Structures are given as C-alpha cells and as structure tokens.
C-alpha cells in the first residue's frame, strides 16, 4: 500500500475526490448542477475522501465554500488524472491530491470539463458572502 505521507502516486480508481467550490456561481441552483467553469484548470486540488472528512476539507477554505465529490476512476476515464501529492502551501494536509487534465492539446477542452462537472455529486453548495 502506498505511503500516504509523502509519496506521489496515482490515486486508485475506487477512491472519491472532494472538490471545493470556491465561487457561488459555479453551483447552478436552478438546474441543480455544477458549472464546468469549476473544472477549467489544467491542474486543480482535491482531497481524497477516504483520508479526510468534508469538515476537515472545508476548514482549509473560507466559510461558505461548497464541496462536491467525484469518483477518481470515472474522472480518469475522461482524462482527469488524480495524483496523491503534497500541497506546498498546506503540507499538513495528507489527503491532498492534484488532478491533471491530460489532454491539454485537445480541441475538446470544454467537453471534458462539462463531463466531469456532470458526474459530480454535490455535498455542500457554496454560500460564500
């Protein structure tokens, strides 16, 4: 089993990732869906669900930040690769991982972001001030 303390390695497909939603507009209340804009990064941070709790993950962000969840394996199938690695700004967070979009030269940048957004489950909608 990989050492979760300091190794960089692929997160296994059965794991779930917790993604902070740091802008209210990224949650579309009327449509009950997440905007693909929340995933229009070449690389973004998540926490591995089995190594944390939603409360601990949210404690790293401003009050009112939302949180959504997606399956790592399903995301990997659409080119979002989750790697367990340290956040240099929060080295104490052992659940931290980066998600890399592996198809950056693709002409279909938005399509995959939208697919990932649609496969998310909303846990706590953002209610930032």
């Amino acid at each position: 089993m990989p050492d979760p303390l300091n190794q960089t390695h692929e997160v296994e497909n059965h794991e779930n990732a917790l993604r902070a939603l740091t802008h209210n507009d990224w949650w579309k209340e009327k449509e009950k869906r997440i905007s693909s804009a929340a995933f229009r990064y070449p690389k973004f941070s998540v926490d591995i669900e089995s190594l944390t709790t939603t409360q601990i993950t949210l404690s790293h962000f401003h009050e009112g930040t939302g949180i959504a969840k997606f399956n790592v394996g399903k995301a990997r199938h659409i080119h979002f690769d989750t790697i367990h690695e340290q956040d240099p700004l929060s080295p104490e967070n052992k659940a931290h991982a980066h998600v890399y979009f592996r198809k950056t030269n693709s002409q279909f940048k938005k399509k995959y972001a939208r697919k990932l957004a649609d496969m998310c489950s909303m846990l706590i909608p953002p209610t930032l001030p």
Partner: protein
Amino acid sequence: MTIIQTQSTQSLIDTKSEEDTPLQRWHRIDVHKQESRLGFTGYQPFTPNDNRINVYNMIRELQALETNWDQCGAPPIDPKIILAVLILVNDLSQNQLRNLDIVPIANGTLQLEWDCGPRSLEIELESCSSMRYLKWDPGHDIEEEGVLPLADKQSIFRLIKWVLDD
C-alpha cells in the same frame, strides 16, 4: 440586489468619442464608484422586466472579483474580457438574454451559459476576439465544441437559437 440604471449600453461603449476609451466608458456602468467622478447624469431606468438588469448586475459583480477570488490564486477578470462580454450582451435581444448566466473562470476570463431543459450552451471568451462554445444535450448525442470569432454574431445567434429552441 442593486439595480443599475443607465443609458443604453451602446452609449456606454460607443467608440466614436476620441476622448474616452471604451474601457473608460465601461466604467460608467459602475454607478456607485464612477458616477460622481465622471459627472455622468441622465440615467434612464430599464423597464422592470428588462433582462439586461440582471445581466449587468452579474457583470458588475464579476468585475469586482479580486486576485485569489477562487482561493487558489486566480487573477481578477480581465477588463478587456468584461468589455467584450458587455459588447456581446449589448447585441443580444431580450429573448436571447433569457436563462443567461455568466460565470468566472480561474484564468481571468468569463463563460456565458444558457440552460433550457436538457439543452445547454456554454460560450467561453478565450480572448477579446475569439470564443469557444459547447453545445450540450447528451440525451440526443449532442456534445459539439468549437471556436468562433467573437465578431461572428450570426453564428452566435444561431447557437443561442438552438439552446432556446426558438
């Protein structure tokens, strides 16, 4: 919600004057900060159901985003992108503004989103001159993505017509 009362958007972004740049004119929409300094009077209220009111308020809020608004180091929204959205919105009819949301992207750009039943349309401004769009209706196998010049208004109108099913 703050309601903006202003002249037509066209007058705000008119480029005919040699004294004001389009960006300076854009600032006139920010009534709280700019009205007094610019001595700009003559606002005319929108009609109560004018769809532009909500759209302009969305743009105002997005214009105010500061560095690190996403808590991950995102830059403020590029003022040129905001102006480009303003110009685009100005060319849209009341009907075309139905169901429109504008959301920020962490690279400092904006995305316009329309949702209408199972269909949705995303228009992401990649620059002041080009946009990337996504037509989305997976139930009908529609996942079409492409790039268009922002000046190609007829194509943009066709995309909006599709999502609104007019």
